[in-house]
């Protein structure tokens, strides 16, 4: 069955070929758009979505080989299935098309039965690829998905300068016990939606969600200028969003929530850890441990956002902070200088 939503782009400099191919695919139930050469085709592909390309080789201005090369080099377009329809002479030319990533080659005049089968198979493969990408997007962040697509998967990490944030809901266990599980799930979904929004709005990436807690990265997998400033700005926005959320909850007589946040800045080792079968993108290192400890300590300190000295220095007085002195933290041999972001009460 033809997917009626599928949209094909037919590229051929020859008018008879264009008309005939578009007639063929339309009779098969697809929608078709036409381009007269490779240059025009690439412009169209970069400005509107297509599901499949039927590509001629011998064309003026930009031939089919050049189109295949450009598609291969373009991360947005390299997965677009291409069926070459050509009467170009020489087996070497056909081999070249396949080598450049064409899904298939159909000689002209194109046999409509073969064309139908090839289009169906190519669209099915694309559907599966899209599904896979969607899954990666759902279970990883778009940055990780992009990193995976560009660099491929390899266990191991690289050193990066980043700010790490930990955040969790205070007294969550008591809250869970006081209400039906469905309400807790609903609460968590709203909470995560708000937190994701604040974090991604400042260039951060939520890397892990553990119950009511989350870990976010600013500066990995993709580098970020002013990662510390972005992390603190995100934290302040998170606190503000929770305050608004609490107003709504109070109005409906639901218990309010409070969050605590810890941020540390420094070198992290970021990459994929796990096994070849199951792995996760994460960051490890002292900076990560410190951020987790700061978040824990925010309960003791009774402050909403605690940051380490490196984060505080990077803020260069843009945000007012209170020095809380050197505090012994679990897992640290020496006491650590910590700061609380002013005006950030535990929400």
């Amino acid at each position: 069955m033809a997917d009626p939503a599928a949209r094909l782009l037919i590229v051929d400099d020859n008018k008879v070929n264009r008309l005939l191919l578009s007639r063929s695919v339309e009779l098969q139930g697809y929608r078709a758009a036409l381009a007269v050469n490779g240059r025009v085709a690439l412009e169209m592909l970069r400005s509107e979505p297509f599901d499949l390309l039927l590509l001629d080789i011998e064309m003026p201005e930009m031939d089919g080989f050049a189109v295949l090369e450009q598609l291969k080099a373009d991360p947005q377009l390299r997965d677009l299935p291409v069926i070459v329809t050509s009467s170009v002479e020489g087996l070497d030319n056909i081999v070249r098309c396949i080598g450049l990533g064409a899904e298939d080659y159909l000689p002209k005049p194109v046999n409509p039965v073969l064309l139908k089968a090839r289009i169906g198979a190519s669209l099915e493969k694309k559907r599966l690829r899209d599904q896979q990408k969607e899954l990666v997007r759902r279970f990883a962040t778009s940055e990780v998905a992009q990193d995976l697509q560009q660099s491929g998967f390899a266990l191991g990490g690289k050193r990066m300068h980043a700010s790490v944030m930990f955040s969790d809901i205070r007294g969550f266990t008591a809250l869970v016990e006081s209400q039906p599980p469905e309400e807790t799930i609903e609460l968590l979904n709203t909470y995560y939606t708000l937190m994701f929004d604040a974090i991604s709005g400042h260039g951060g990436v939520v890397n892990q969600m553990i119950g009511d807690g989350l870990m976010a990265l600013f500066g990995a997998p993709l580098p970020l200028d002013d990662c510390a400033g972005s992390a603190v700005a995100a934290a302040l926005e998170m606190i503000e969003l929770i305050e608004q959320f609490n107003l709504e909850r109070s109005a409906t007589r639901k218990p309010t929530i409070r969050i605590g946040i810890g941020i540390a800045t420094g070198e992290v080792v970021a990459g994929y850890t796990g096994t070849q079968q199951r792995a996760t993108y994460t960051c490890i290192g002292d900076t990560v441990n410190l951020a987790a400890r700061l978040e824990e300590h925010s309960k003791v300190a009774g402050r909403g956002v605690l940051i380490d000295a490196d984060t505080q220095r990077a803020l260069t007085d843009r945000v007012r902070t209170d020095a809380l002195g050197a505090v012994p933290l679990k897992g640290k041999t020496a006491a650590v200088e910590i700061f609380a972001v002013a005006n950030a009460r535990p929400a």
Partner: protein
Amino acid sequence: MDESAIDKTVYAELQDTAGAEFVADLADTFIEEATGMLAELRSARTANHADRFRRAAHSLKTNGNTFGAMRLGALARDLELKGLDADPARDEAAIAALEVEYARAAAALKDLRDG
């Protein structure tokens, strides 16, 4: 009337898959376009432009084969594969033969269209 320039089986198959009316219109498009392709072939020969020469021959080959104009397709294919000849006169003669074959094919297509 000379229909032997067109392989009727190929033409009938085309009609079966694309529809008779559409094929009649498509044949008209071919006839409109082919004049330009032949002119392009001549002009590329004069300008000694191998790419243009090959592309024009290629287009005529493809369209000839689409409609079942097998001899037209074969003559055009020869030019495409051979490319520009060291002796322009040989190409001139081949183009002239191609034009004659095209005229036969066009006439046959018009006859088929008009039933």
